């Protein structure tokens, strides 16, 4: 078991400072009926890092992301968050704890504008109660204004000012992905989970997205855990990589370590490069 006490992190090969452990998965097993989606997997996520989970189709990556964000409940294993064991929780409770996510097939509020979509990300920071909201003055109003300012900053950062008032349903795919990222970022999450952020994008859009991911990690110090198919992208972006295959963990380490791991080459790289 990892001893996280007094572990203040380390410096990566390319000189990036990585902090202490913020989340730890311990011996997670997830089954759907007889199918084992995740089998006894442990790994950790450290503050300020970009952590990738990779693996071929059906390896259980998305399942793992769903366990972290509370959408799936593992049959066995423990999730430790900020030094405490996390009790069973509903997804919205996990979100309120500061774990934001995006979805592989984009889950946005199509009928709402970009601005409103991103504003929903602030919900966990808005504490005024229903009655004062209904009357909408004093605290509720001030809160709305403050949060609006933060949201505008994120909108600027992700370069989507020009579509602020556009209903999301009308946007092209690449921009939708960016709006979804903005919404997750608006939550000022402790961990930002990205489910295939580049899926279905062209080269240019992929480059944009990579840049945004690196920049927001730099600028806001956001801890990011991402799942991705595109090997090249993952290796460039991430500080550490978990490799999964058939629900098992077959590798864990820096991109260069993972690249040299024979099991990984066989399972994933080997196939991909044949």
């Amino acid at each position, binding site marked *: 078991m990892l001893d996280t006490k007094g572990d203040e992190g380390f410096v990566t090969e390319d000189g990036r400072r990585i902090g202490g452990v913020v989340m730890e998965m311990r011996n997670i097993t997830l089954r759907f009926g007889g199918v084992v989606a995740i089998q006894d997997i442990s790994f950790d996520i450290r503050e300020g890092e970009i952590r990738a989970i990779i693996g071929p189709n059906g390896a259980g990556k998305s399942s793992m992301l769903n366990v972290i*964000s509370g*959408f799936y409940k593992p049959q066995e294993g423990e999730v430790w968050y900020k030094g405490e064991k996390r009790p069973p929780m*509903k*997804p*919205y*409770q996990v*979100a*309120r704890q500061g774990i*934001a*996510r995006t*979805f592989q097939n984009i*889950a*946005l*509020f*199509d*009928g*709402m504008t970009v601005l*409103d979509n991103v*504003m*929903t*990300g602030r*919900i*966990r920071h*808005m504490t*005024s109660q*229903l009655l004062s*909201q*209904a009357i*909408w003055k004093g605290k*509720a109003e001030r*809160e*709305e204004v403050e949060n609006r300012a933060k949201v505008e900053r994120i909108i600027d950062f992700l370069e989507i000012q020009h579509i602020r008032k556009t209903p999301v349903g009308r946007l092209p795919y690449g921009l939708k992905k960016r709006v979804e990222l903005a*919404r*997750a970022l608006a*939550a000022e999450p402790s961990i930002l989970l990205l489910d295939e952020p580049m899926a279905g994008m062209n080269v240019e859009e992929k480059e944009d997205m990579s840049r945004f991911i690196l920049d927001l990690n730099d600028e806001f110090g956001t801890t990011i855990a991402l799942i991705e198919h595109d090997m090249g992208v993952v290796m460039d972006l991430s500080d550490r990589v978990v490799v999964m295959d058939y629900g098992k963990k077959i590798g864990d380490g820096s991109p260069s370590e993972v690249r040299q791991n024979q099991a990984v080459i066989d399972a994933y790289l080997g196939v991909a490069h044949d």
Partner: protein
Amino acid sequence: MPDQFFWGMEVFANGLMTGVLYSLVALGFVLIFKASGIFNFSQGVMALFAALTLVGIMEGRVPFAHLINATFGTNVHTFGWTVPAFAAILLTMVVMVALAWAVNQFIFRHLVGQAPIILFMATIGLAYFLEGVGDIMWGSDIKDLDVGLPQGINETIDEATFNLLGYGFFIDNLDIAATLVAVLLVIALVLFAQYTKYGRAMRAVADDHQAALSVGISLKFIWIMVWSLAGFVALVAGIIWGTKSGVQFSLSLIALKALPVLMLGGFTSIPGAIVGGLIIGVGEKMFEFLIGPMVGGATENWFAYVLALIVLVFRPQGLFGEKIIERV
């Protein structure tokens, strides 16, 4: 012929007022449908139930009096006090929130992810259950409801129009009050939905459950909130209908008139519910006035449905509904 024309104008105005009431019921449908995809057949019964409860509380009636007397051989009917209208309305609202909670807790929580037709059937069941509960709780006699809304002919309009046009318009004060209340209610709802955290969360849940969860919105909370809002709208509709024609069980039938209103306005549009209600209200009164005599009258019973059918053929999503786009 000017008298005939003014008469028509008067029918038009009265149609608008009737339309406001249809709109109020339709509004309750739209709220729940938007947020949870449930077509709530029991909306009309909720209006009835709210009105019954309001009267019961105001007159200090003992709930379940029949049942209690039959079981224990007692003879209790009232507590012997009366509650002022405002306090009674607040208390009724508490009951409606409790109802919203119960509906979610005992029915819809267990039906998440089921096909819409199953949810719809559940609301039909709920409608008849609620009607039965209302009956057992408060009795089935027709009750007078007076919360202090103005009633009777508006003399000012009557005189002013008579002096100006030579024809005194008959407009009921209650209709004017109902219109004002409905307008205020709609403005409040739209502001709430557009500019508050909970309104935004409500729209978010309506759009995508997964995404709503992922930003920390509790679906359960929003559903209870929406059913409570629908309960509030039902209460307002119940008060107005109850004041107009007494609280009676036929009140639940107004739910059926809300159906063509929804087909016309679209199931997902708050403005649509309002405009749809007005069109149906005016349409059926004017049709009865202009065409009715030629076909033997009683057109009010079917006009709304025929109009809705015609709209359905040409614009299935309704006049204001979100456009249905099928990607092939």
